[in-house]
């Protein structure tokens, strides 16, 4: 009996000591933790967003991500404009993937109105979409290279991006916010001279892109900075629901151009691009290979573009109904929801930009990283902050209430007065439009 008791006592003592030790360890490690804020304004961020990073030494333990600094109320503004005016507003959701947003919006309305666009228009939409993907990925490559201190590649890829923008300006009439889409087709035709310029650009860019791919695959400095950074395994990618190159780098083929072909993608062969690295290196390789694939799509569609009209007439009033339209943006799957009530203005427009889906996995990607790898991890999902900020949540004590413009102004004046600032003397310009 006594022996057993002794053993028990010993074991209990040992356990207590161990617990004490681990508790001490935990306490010392918690004492050593530092919380640093990155943003809302920071040189490594291209748009405002805040990251509250908890560090233990140099390693990231936790990250709290705050987006929502650039909410513009585009969805609400859509409700007070006609469908034609909305085309140009929707284009400005994102400065880089503007064509994909207007394509998704037009597709939805064409579905509601029962319009089939001419094949030539569908091909032109594809050519512009692929040119846009090229310029978006080249821009990303430059930004990513800049984040890891490889500014030569940044200069190279942005120089090549100019060639793509020149072709876009020639086809559409502008470098960004192309304004090529209209309800029922496209606004501008593509002639043989434009086609020649596009093919010439494609030949030039192919050589450059192969050089970049070779560089990424062989350069030791690049692989040291990119391999194993921002890991998001296949299981985690599925759990967080990430889209686009982030998912494709983890081996998930979620390309809307293949799984749900829109525009002319049902006739054009698109080869899926995936990778198994599941890190920033994989995302880089996927984006460069996607650009090479885009060049093939452009060549195919320029050669096989059918003759005919470029647009059909669309009604001003769109029949009542609701629709969901999906397109493949350079950053991933882009979803538009449109509800029509039979007038010439939409009842509700909801946009889910691809960056919104990719933010979900960011905390997981940052955990366990070194502090110096945070900028490239954030840049690797190609975040588009203002595209993400679609909704705003107001924590009001008195529940929900509807305010008109005057009421809202009065409320804001009182809100500032409580904090010692009197803004009631500021004269507001008269609102002329869309009051």
């Amino acid at each position, binding site marked *: 009996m006594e022996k057993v008791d002794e053993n028990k006592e010993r074991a209990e003592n040992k356990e207590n000591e161990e617990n004490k030790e681990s508790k001490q360890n935990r306490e010392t490690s918690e004492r050593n933790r530092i919380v640093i804020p990155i943003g809302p304004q920071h040189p490594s961020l291209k748009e405002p967003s805040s990251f509250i990073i908890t560090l233990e030494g140099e390693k990231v333990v936790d990250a709290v991500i705050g987006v929502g600094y650039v909410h513009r109320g585009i969805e609400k503004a859509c409700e007070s404009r006609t469908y034609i005016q909305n085309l140009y507003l929707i284009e400005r959701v994102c400065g880089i993937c503007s064509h994909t947003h207007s394509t998704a919006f037009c597709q939805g309305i064409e579905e509601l109105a029962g319009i089939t666009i001419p094949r030539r228009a569908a091909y032109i939409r594809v050519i512009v979409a692929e040119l846009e993907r090229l310029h978006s990925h080249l821009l990303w490559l430059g930004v990513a290279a800049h984040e890891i201190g490889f500014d030569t590649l940044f200069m190279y890829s942005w120089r090549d991006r100019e060639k793509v923008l020149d072709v876009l300006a020639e086809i559409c009439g*502008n470098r960004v916010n192309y304004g090529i889409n209209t309800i029922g087709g496209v606004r501008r035709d593509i002639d043989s001279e434009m086609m020649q310029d596009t093919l010439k650009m494609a030949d030039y860019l192919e050589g450059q892109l192969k050089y970049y791919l070779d560089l990424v695959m062989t350069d030791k400095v690049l692989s040291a900075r990119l391999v194993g950074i921002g890991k998001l395994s296949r299981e985690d990618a599925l759990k967080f629901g990430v889209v686009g190159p982030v998912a494709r780098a983890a081996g998930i083929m979620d390309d809307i151009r293949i799984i749900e072909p829109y525009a002319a993608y049902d006739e054009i062969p698109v080869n899926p691009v995936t990778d198994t690295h599941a890190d920033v290196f994989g995302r880089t390789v996927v984006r460069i290979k996607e650009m090479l694939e885009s060049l093939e799509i452009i060549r195919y569609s320029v050669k096989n573009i059918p003759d005919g009209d470029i647009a059909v007439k669309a009604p001003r009033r769109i029949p009542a109904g609701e629709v969901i339209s999906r397109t493949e943006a350079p950053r991933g799957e882009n979803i538009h929801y449109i509800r029509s009530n039979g007038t010439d203005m939409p009842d509700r427009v909801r946009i889910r930009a691809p960056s919104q889906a990719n933010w979900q996995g960011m905390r997981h990607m940052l955990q366990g990283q070194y502090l110096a790898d945070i900028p490239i991890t954030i840049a690797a999902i190609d975040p588009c902050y203002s595209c993400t900020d679609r909704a705003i949540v107001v924590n009001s004590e008195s529940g929900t209430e509807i305010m008109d413009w005057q009421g809202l102004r009065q409320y804001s004046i009182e809100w500032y007065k409580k904090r010692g600032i009197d803004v009631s003397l500021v004269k507001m310009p008269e609102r002329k439009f869309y009051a």
Partner: protein
Amino acid sequence: MIKQRIGKIINEAVKNFFRKPATISLAKDKIQIVKNYRGKLVYDPANCTGCGMCVRNCPAAAITIVNEGTKEERKMKATLNVGHCIFCCQCVDSCPKKCLSYSQNIDLASFNKEELKMQL
């Protein structure tokens, strides 16, 4: 391996040495605009009926067209606020009489806000 890499670097350096610069000097050279670039609007009042389709469809509320004469003898005046205009040229597409077109004029900056309101 090292020799190959050095060869590549020298090749790239020599190629770039004889290349034209990718940028232009804004002081000396003029910006090259492509043929179809959308610039400032051009208005031809001869055929304009004052239907207002351009005003109705303008996403930025930049253009206004008023009839300063009578119904029989029209005297159409178009005003464009280039500070609001987003150069989408939807008005050019909307016009049933093809009175509006776009030019290659893109030098529209001004020190005075009032000068941005232009008579077309």
